[in-house]
């Protein structure tokens, strides 16, 4: 009987654990927390907007080369003391003991929006005034690194404005005549009433302020350079057009990067050869080549297949004397394990803003990409009348769309020149690229391929006069698809028009009851 009872208790406990009735935090070992410099705390059960905000902060902090742990209020209370920097993101209605723990932890705290700034500052004994603001539109004024300040309207969730004595303030915020600074700092506490980081200007401002807050010394943190990157250059781009842009950059003695799309098939075609000819010319004149990640709808778990394709693409370019020194990938890659695995083949990773979809996995609780030790280059945030890059606290890439036309390209290049951020050459950094039987590295401006030094001197290719395309019947049919498009469009237009005419005629006839009647039913 006794055994039966014990068995029942154990069985019920097992069910409760299985059904998650017992909180995960209670059963989780503390060993699962990664060591990091920064802890981001978000609300328990965050909504999509809040998750998106956390994702933006993690991306920016990763570009700033910091390790970050992110967790909810309930999860992180026991570990507050383990992190030197704590960011409270839009925290609302948190329990008093959380604020008390935060105060007792005596760490550098940054708060974005939320409604616990009053409790925190009063317990810390800061001499500040509080003005509660409900949901409203705020006028925001800030200058960043530009000469002219930006003025914009921003939706503000209910929060508290702080006024009083601060050691540092920046920007202005105006809500129905109630004014405050945009960011304000007292001691190691940094506060902004704004939690919405969806606007590029707010992202740029957060990047600047968080870098300053994390900087352990007086004055401004380090300035980082920017790369000019010709984005998504396909092998079928007109060689003359690409050449014109490359020559323009060479003329102004600017270092630049060309991000080429991977190609796996028909690499022996003269078009590929001509394309690589321009790339080799660029390479010999200060340009560096990186590989753009293939645009595939879904990667799934097929990491090995993707690695194989990327190796094929690298081999194809290398066979023409074009040496990719890094890879350009969407920023969502940093949150997906299978894609981080692919990035391990490259020491230099350029991230670009893909879309605003949520790809962060909150259960990971850590920016694992940081552990890979990449040289990370984030996307530039270009603002203002001239579209100047407004981020200089981490390495940035100004992506130029070469398909925009020469005038627009020139404008973007000049914006880079005029910005106060220096332009860097990828040849001046240490880059390593692996692949199947490929080991590429650069050191002090020299390129080594499988440990053999490679000369980048440009020598024109020789072309076969009558290239044999080896077209079989399938190639012919596939090629014919393009001409078939036109034919089919005409067929579809004619048929649709005929069908519409038939429908109108049938309705007309039907109305006059000439056609088959179902009245007899």
């Amino acid at each position, binding site marked *: 009987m006794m055994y039966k009872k014990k068995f029942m208790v154990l069985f019920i406990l097992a069910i409760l654990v299985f059904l998650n009735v017992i909180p995960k935090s209670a059963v989780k070992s503390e060993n699962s927390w990664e060591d990091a410099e920064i802890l981001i705390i978000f609300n328990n059960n965050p909504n999509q907007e809040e998750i998106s905000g956390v994702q933006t902060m993690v991306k920016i902090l990763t570009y700033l080369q910091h390790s970050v742990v992110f967790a909810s209020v309930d999860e992180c209370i026991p570990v507050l003391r383990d992190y030197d920097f704590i960011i409270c993101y839009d925290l609302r209605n948190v329990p008093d003991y959380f604020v008390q723990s935060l105060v007792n932890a005596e760490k550098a705290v940054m708060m974005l929006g939320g409604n616990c700034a009053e409790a925190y500052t009063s317990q810390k004994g800061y001499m500040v005034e509080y003005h509660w603001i409900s949901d409203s539109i705020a006028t925001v004024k800030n200058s960043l690194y530009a000469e002219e300040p930006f003025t914009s309207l921003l939706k503000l969730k209910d929060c508290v404005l702080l006024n009083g004595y601060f050691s540092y303030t920046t920007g202005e915020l105006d809500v129905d005549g109630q004014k405050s600074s945009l960011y304000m700092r007292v001691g190691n506490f940094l506060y902004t009433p704004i939690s919405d980081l969806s606007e590029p200007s707010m992202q740029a401002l957060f990047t600047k302020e968080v870098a300053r807050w994390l900087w352990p010394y007086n004055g401004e943190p380090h300035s980082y350079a920017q790369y000019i990157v010709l984005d998504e250059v396909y092998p079928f781009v007109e060689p003359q057009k690409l050449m014109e842009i490359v020559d323009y950059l060479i003329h102004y003695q600017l270092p630049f990067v060309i991000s080429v799309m991977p190609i796996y098939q028909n690499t022996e075609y003269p078009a590929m050869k001509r394309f690589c000819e321009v790339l080799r010319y660029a390479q010999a004149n200060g340009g560096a080549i990186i590989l753009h990640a293939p645009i595939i709808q879904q990667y799934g778990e097929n990491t090995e297949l993707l690695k194989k394709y990327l190796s094929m693409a690298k081999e194809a370019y290398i066979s023409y004397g074009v040496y990719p020194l890094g890879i350009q990938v969407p920023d969502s890659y940093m949150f997906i394990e299978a894609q981080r695995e692919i990035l391990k083949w490259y020491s230099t990773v350029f991230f670009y803003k893909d879309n605003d979809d949520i790809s962060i996995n909150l259960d990971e609780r850590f920016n694992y990409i940081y552990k890979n030790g990449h040289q990370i280059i984030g996307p530039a945030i270009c603002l203002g009348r001239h579209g100047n890059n407004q981020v200089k606290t981490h390495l940035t890439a100004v992506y130029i769309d070469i398909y925009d036309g020469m005038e627009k390209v020139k404008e973007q290049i000049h914006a880079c020149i005029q910005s106060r951020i220096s332009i860097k050459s990828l040849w001046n950094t240490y880059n390593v690229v692996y692949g199947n039987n490929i080991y590429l590295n650069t050191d002090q401006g020299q390129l080594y391929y499988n440990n053999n030094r490679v000369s980048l001197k440009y020598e024109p290719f020789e072309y076969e006069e009558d290239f044999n395309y080896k077209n079989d019947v399938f190639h012919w049919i596939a090629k014919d698809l393009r001409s078939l498009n036109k034919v089919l469009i005409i067929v579809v237009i004619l*048929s649709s028009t005929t069908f519409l005419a038939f429908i109108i005629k049938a309705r007309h006839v039907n109305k006059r009851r000439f056609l088959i009647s179902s009245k007899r039913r």
Partner: protein
Amino acid sequence: MVWADMISLYSIYSIWLLLIINIILSIGGFLYYLRVSKTDGHIPLEEYPMVSIMVPAHNESVVIGRTVSALLKFDYPKDKYEIIVINDNSSDNTAEVLKKIQENNPDRYIIVVNTDSVAGGKGKSNALNIGFSVARGSVIAIYDADNTPEPEALRLLVENLMSDNKIGAVIGKFRTRNRNASILSRFVNIETLAYQCMNQAGRFFFFKLCTIPGTNFAIRRNIIEEMGGWDTKALSEDTEISFRIYRMGYYIKMMPLAVTWEQEPHLLPVWFKQRTRWAKGNIYVLLKNFKYIFDKSANRMRLDILYYLLVYLLMLSSLILSDIIFISGILGYVHVSLSGFSSLLWGMAILLFVLNVLITLAIEENEFSLQSAILILIMLFTYSKLWVLVVLNAIIQSVSDRLFKREAKWEKTVRYAEAAVEINNK
């Protein structure tokens, strides 16, 4: 070029080829409907021949009363037609229902042939052969047990049959009586109008080719005698008999003004069984007649074999392969590197499909609506996919029947009382 590219190419070309064939047939069908609509369809005869209407019935007590009542209302000379109901080994009260009808109509020729499990219960072809043995008419008309033909249907069929000695049979049009019973019956209604009626009309307009639909048709007695009755092994005796008519040098005419209304399956399992039987029957007929594709003496029947080949080989394979490529692509197993085919064209193909079917609905009363257009769109992604499953099931069953030397079994379509359906219609 990788295999995925080759398969994609094959699917693209096949699907567009079939779409274009369908467009052409719809244009022909519409023009034929228009031509017929300018007449009343009648070709009066000096003397009307004796007609034997045969109705095979197996456990049809739910619907048979209504069917025979409709047959009795034909405007055909009453002394010139007889109704032969083959009560084929029924276990329900079909016999009693029929007996009551006979008693209530003593002045009409209503013959009921009751069979037992020894002589009957072996499928429609067998039942028709039994009925034919007692038939007196020089023209034989066939109706399924769930049909309610319109009063002038028989006269239209017979008049057109007698108008040309080369016409072996005349088929009418059939409509769905219970179209609002379920979403499935609405799909069946649209499919029936678009593919079984419009397509038939198109084939007749261009090639004088039709396939007997199994009900609502009239055929010359001498043809049945010459061909030795119905093939009892064929599950779709209608397609089988059509092929034989063409081989004998006759052609089949379509008369869309001869309308019958029938009950279509409104439940998926019933529909699936019925369509599997049809597909199995068509595969049997296709295999049996495939040799004639190279035989010039088979006349225009060769075109019909080609048409069935296109449907059962090209369409089936291209739909399956394109779906495999699509799903494998999404799952990341396959990468198609084929370029140059505009995705806009796929959108236009869907538009074309919808317009194509809408023409058919525009011809009919109370069928053309925005709701129907939406249904057609839904059909494309649901009902059409089910067709693939039906044919695959039929192929598997046919192969297993052949391997295990099983006789093809006639799966009767389950009928339902329509009181509830009519309430739905209101």
